[in-house]
């Protein structure tokens, strides 16, 4: 646990405790408190990250810092959006309380330096996500929540068994000791088995194929801003983050963990393929986005499995980009649902005139996802492909490249059904959502474009500042 970053965990937690009491009968105050907490944290982090001097004084791993920043960015966008989202929200105070707790838990996940604390935070996160999905207390929401619970529950079992084996064999949970053990070159059958079990648990939690059954249901069933929160950041922190961490550790055991790394890459590739093809066939917007998430997480896992420094940097870069563009798409799906009353793509159509901002921000986000230059997603995908090629996985590199076309294809389908096409009944009555609800997506779209255009500076920053502080 890095002390320097403790404040980012404690302050949202504190707000989470205060909100139900202080804002008991004042929902607006709850909005304000939640927003102010996250905005303060984000501006603080932005200052730290952009200021080289102060950055050097902050303790902690570069990866953790970037992740904390991403968590705050996405959470602030979601919270700000929710404050103006007039959907059915039975209990605002409880909602913000849960959201802020989940932010605290996520910051805990990314700043800890041992597996046990990591596990604790991941479980806290799981409980809050479970409760957040039920914010929408219709049958769909409950179904999603129960599915989420039942399907990710075995993951916890795998992780806890893995942790016990780890404790038995090396007597410690810390990343450092695992790394020391692995790099010592001793035969590490048990440790590797334990790591395999832990990895399996996190693969389930991140919804990688073949463990993806829960994601579409959970995202579809839950309250729209909650799906943005879950898809935008929670699944990444509770699953993919740990996978990247473990890959960074495993790389040191040259050769020993080859089978594990190979499996990871295979599952990543499989996710890319299955997720993309399944997304092509969806009729519900949120389900399509969920499958698209699965496919994009596949890219991250594929790169993480390879584990070369460039691949890890690329994976982290793609993680950040995916957080931004997937949040935009999910928030826009919430706006669309708000405006048209449905998420069934067949019933929408011709929405672009009614909702030009939503339409254009969606186009930016989806083109970035499909890897169309010069948007941010193109560069991270390109880095992943270059890393794969340089690391000798040429077949994977080519497949990953060519599957961008499927990504583009399903987004074309989506764009055609929702924004283009004949004006549907929904489009006749729909109108653009209010400016405050557009602000988060416009902000994130600006991030996508800026990172894409300023790629060289961002890349240099990533390598010189963030990656320098990681043990690669």
């Amino acid at each position, binding site marked *: 646990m890095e002390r320097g970053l403790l404040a980012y965990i404690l302050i949202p937690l504190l707000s989470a405790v205060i909100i139900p009491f202080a804002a008991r009968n004042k929902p607006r105050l709850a909005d304000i408190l939640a927003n102010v907490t996250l905005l303060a944290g984000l501006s603080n982090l932005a200052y730290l990250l952009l200021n080289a001097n102060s950055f050097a004084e902050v303790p902690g791993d570069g990866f953790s810092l970037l992740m904390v920043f991403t968590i705050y960015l996405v959470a602030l966008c979601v919270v700000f959006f929710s404050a103006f989202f007039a959907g059915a929200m039975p209990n605002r105070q409880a909602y913000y309380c849960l959201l802020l707790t989940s932010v605290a838990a996520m910051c805990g996940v990314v700043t800890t330096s041992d597996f046990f604390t990591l596990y604790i935070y991941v479980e806290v996160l799981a409980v809050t996500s479970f409760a957040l999905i039920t914010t929408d207390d219709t049958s769909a929401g409950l179904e999603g929540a129960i599915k989420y619970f039942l399907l990710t529950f075995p993951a916890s079992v795998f992780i806890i068994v893995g942790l016990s084996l780890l404790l038995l064999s090396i007597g410690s949970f810390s990343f450092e000791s695992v790394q020391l053990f692995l790099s010592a070159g001793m035969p590490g059958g048990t440790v590797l088995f334990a790591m395999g079990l832990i990895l399996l648990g996190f693969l389930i939690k991140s919804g990688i194929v073949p463990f993806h059954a829960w994601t579409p249901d959970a995202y579809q069933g839950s309250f729209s801003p909650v799906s943005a929160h879950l898809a935008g950041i929670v699944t990444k922190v509770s699953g993919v983050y740990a996978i990247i961490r473990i890959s960074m550790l495993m790389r040191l055991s040259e050769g020993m963990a080859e089978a594990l790394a190979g499996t990871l890459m295979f599952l990543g590739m499989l996710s890319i393929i299955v997720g993309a093809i399944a997304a092509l066939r969806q009729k519900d917007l949120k389900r399509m986005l969920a499958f698209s998430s699965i496919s994009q997480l596949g890219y991250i896992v594929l790169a993480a499995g390879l584990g070369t420094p460039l691949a890890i940097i690329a994976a982290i870069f793609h993680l950040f980009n995916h957080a931004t563009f997937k949040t935009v798409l999910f928030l826009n799906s919430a706006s669309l649902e708000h405006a048209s009353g449905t998420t069934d793509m067949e019933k929408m159509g*011709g929405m*672009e005139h009614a909702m030009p901002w939503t339409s254009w921000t969606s186009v930016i986000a989806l*083109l970035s996802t499909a890897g*169309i*230059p*010069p948007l941010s997603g*193109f560069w991270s995908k*390109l880095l992943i*492909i*270059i890393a794969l*090629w*340089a690391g000798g996985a040429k077949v994977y*590199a*080519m497949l990953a*490249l*060519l599957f*961008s*076309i499927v990504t*583009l*294809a399903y987004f*074309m*389908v989506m764009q*055609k059904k929702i924004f*283009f*096409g*004949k004006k549907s009944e929904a489009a006749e009555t729909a109108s653009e959502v209010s400016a405050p609800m557009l602000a988060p997506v416009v902000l994130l779209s600006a991030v996508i474009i800026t990172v894409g255009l300023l*790629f*060289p500076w961002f*890349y*240099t920053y990533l*390598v010189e500042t963030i990656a320098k502080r990681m043990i690669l």
Partner: protein
Amino acid sequence: MDQSPSNIQLIFALKTAVAAPILGAFLIPFANKISVAARNTLAVALGLVTFISAAWLLPGTISGLAINYSIAFPLGFDFILSADMLSVFMAVISSFVSSLILIYSIDYISHYENQTEYYTMVVLFLGSMMGLVFSANLLWMYVFWELTAFASWRLVGFFRSDRDVLKANKTFLVTVFGALCMLAGILLVYFDKGCIDMRLLRGENISNVAAFLILTGILAKSATLPFSTWLPDAGVAPSTVTALLHAAVLVKIGVYAYARIFGVTFVAAPEFSQAVLWIAGASAIVSAAAALVEKDIKRIIAYSTVSQIAFIFLGLASGNRVAFIGGLLYILMHSVAKGGLFLCAGIIEQKTHNKDITKMGGLFKTMPITGVSFALCSLSVMGIPPFGGFFSKFLVFKGATQNGTLGVILMFLAGAIMTLLYLSRMFYLVFMGQEKPDSPREGSIVMVASVLALALIGLSLGALIYYPSYYVDLLTNQLGVNLQ
């Protein structure tokens, strides 16, 4: 680098040619807030500024100055703009045609919705085209390549009916698929040579796999077999202007990339060039045959473009100096003549509210100027002397016969004869024959003036063939690699 004032001026012109349309495109929605006139003026002004900046570079490149501008990027992805004779040649042609399209649009497009998006995308398209021709780094060429695909996606889907959007998506997916193959090829080069700066790679060999991957991208963009179907489909998309942008400018991107990558940079294996020739030959015949049986006026012209593009490939891939010169001249002549044909078709379609040529007839009496322009442009495409099209076609064939295989030459001869046939058929059905009742009047002055201008330019290019051929000759001497 030479820091003389003239060189600084040229670098500034180079930057303006790329930056003005790309950045300016995003100002168009704001100009629309002021007034429609302000928006239209801005769009046309941006087109003209681009054209003037590109033309400004002409004298500099002829005298052999190296005009470069670069920003260093990590991993060898430097952003390099470099003006040499070939890129300036392409830039001048495409910015000229695009400016003319913008002027013609003011009238033509004024009846439709989504005008602001239309102008934004046309100008963005022009800017990406400029970026593409001036990029000396393969990766940046790819970036601009995709930007043009994005702009054309929005332009083909200009009308939002299901059918149009389907065509737009098809265009986008086909060209992006090609582009991804090309990116794979570029990455192969990147790993093979450790560098993707084309100025440094000049005269290097390229592996066959990489060459074919890049070729896939080029064929997809230039709508050559087996990717030819998207262009006629995009051609039926609502706006003729859009169709023109694709037929006269977009497909040239593919040809330019071929000239740039395989003509003046890499040395490809002889089998590769042979394969290109056979593919192009098949493309010439198949699309000409399709043009012979089509009834939709815009589809005919689009198929004709596919067929003519094949002739350009014949010139560029023959590996012969004369043919290469012919191929480059062909780009110029075809842009002008095909531009004229498309704009004529636009006037005809707008006035008759009809695209089926079998239902037209006798239009010559009521639309004489359009008819004459159409005839002049057709003659140039057919390659009848003294039009510009004759010289380019002649040079392509002259060069190709010197070291081509008989089979390829015969295929192209058949293609050339079919060109004559389908263009005569179309002219006859539209302008000659029985006059239909309530034949429409001539189009508006701006529109008719644009087509007449293109027709006359086509004619005068034939008369003044000395100047372009001198330029292209110099270009080939200066830059050509592996030519006999």
